């Protein structure tokens, strides 16, 4: 009881104890911090953002209304496209390994292949003129909007421009570096 009633005093032992605790803590932190930075993935050598040149099966000017041309990301060097927008499982900046050039109502769009539900690759259903997802049955109109769930968001767009001639397009992407 006498101890509890005694006023709290700053003693030399107290100060030394706290000092040691601070020194030990800072030593531990300075030891662990570089390890955490080490664990954060370093981009592999050769990883580079930039437009990827894609040769299309059908030249741009010959794509007719309602026609779909599928293309894949180049595999040498290993590359992926970068989505411009997206909802659900897709988000701007996410990667896609394939896409579609679609002409609807006179407008040409380039869509990423990833379903907005959980990311499976959608495929063209030529008889119904829709993109169908094989995983959970989501369906999309050719302009990428949802026809049937479980997907709730439209397909993502890719940022693109025509290449040197109408046979190629340049799509924003990433050379993965592995």
């Amino acid at each position, binding site marked *: 009881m006498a101890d509890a009633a005694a006023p709290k005093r700053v003693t030399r032992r107290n100060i030394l104890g706290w000092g040691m605790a601070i020194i030990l803590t800072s030593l531990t932190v300075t030891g662990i911090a570089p390890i955490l930075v080490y*664990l*954060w*993935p370093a*981009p*592999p050598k050769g990883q580079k953002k930039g437009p990827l040149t894609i040769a299309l099966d059908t030249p741009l000017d010959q794509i007719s209304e309602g026609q779909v041309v599928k293309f894949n990301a180049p*595999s040498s060097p290993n590359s*992926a496209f970068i989505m411009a927008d997206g909802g659900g*499982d897709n988000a701007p900046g996410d*990667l896609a390994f394939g896409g579609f050039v679609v002409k609807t109502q006179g407008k040409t769009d380039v869509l990423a292949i990833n379903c907005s539900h*959980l*990311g499976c690759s959608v495929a063209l259903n030529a008889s119904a003129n829709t993109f169908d997802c094989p995983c959970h049955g989501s369906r999309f109109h050719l302009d990428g909007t949802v026809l049937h769930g479980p997907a709730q968001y439209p397909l993502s767009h890719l940022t693109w421009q025509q290449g040197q001639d109408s046979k190629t397009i340049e799509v924003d992407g*990433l050379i*993965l570096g*592995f």
Partner: protein
Amino acid sequence: MAIPHPREIQLAVVQWLDERYPFTKTVDEAMYQRVPNFANAFYYCFGGMVFVLIVLQLLTGILLAIYYVPDARGNPAPAYTSVNFIQNDVYLGWLIRGVHFWGANILIIMVLLHMARVYWTGSYRAPRELNWIVGILMLLLILVLALSGYLLPWDTKAYFATEVTIKIAGSAPPAALGAFIKTVLQGGPVVGPPTLQIFFTAHVFLLPALIVLLMYVHFRFIRAHGIAEPL
């Protein structure tokens, strides 16, 4: 010179060792423990079976690591072709890999049975709660081992299963934390060669070391507490 009886040589060796460390005493204490009658029921063996299975996993894992190449670059990647090689070309490779594969599946079943027994007989009660907690940690470690091992063959099933599990881990709220977890687990923006490297490191170095350490703690606790009497 008289030829010594083998037993005399044995005694001499044991005596030489015992003079330097009490080996006989230590081994006696570790080996010769009376098992209470109630612990003779077959369901008290589940924990021991888990132990045997883990030892089997360590042994077959070491044998697999002799031929496995944790490299996912290129197509087909060495990771995939080396598993193919183990399965089809290495002498008894199919058996070693089969035991490792089925052992992992049976291990999870046995762990759950062991857990059910401990729960059923109330063996988690005071003062044994810490051992239950250590057991839960080992259950989680075994599940992570199974998950990380699943990616190593680097076939389509492995790749997309890992894609899904990383996506689940990456959905942890808040979004920034989920994205952080996803990037660290993948080792980059997509599931690729860095992911295999990380999973391989966890599966082969980190997790086995942790589980062996926790098994030691688990067994020391059992020895300290004795086998719990049933309810």
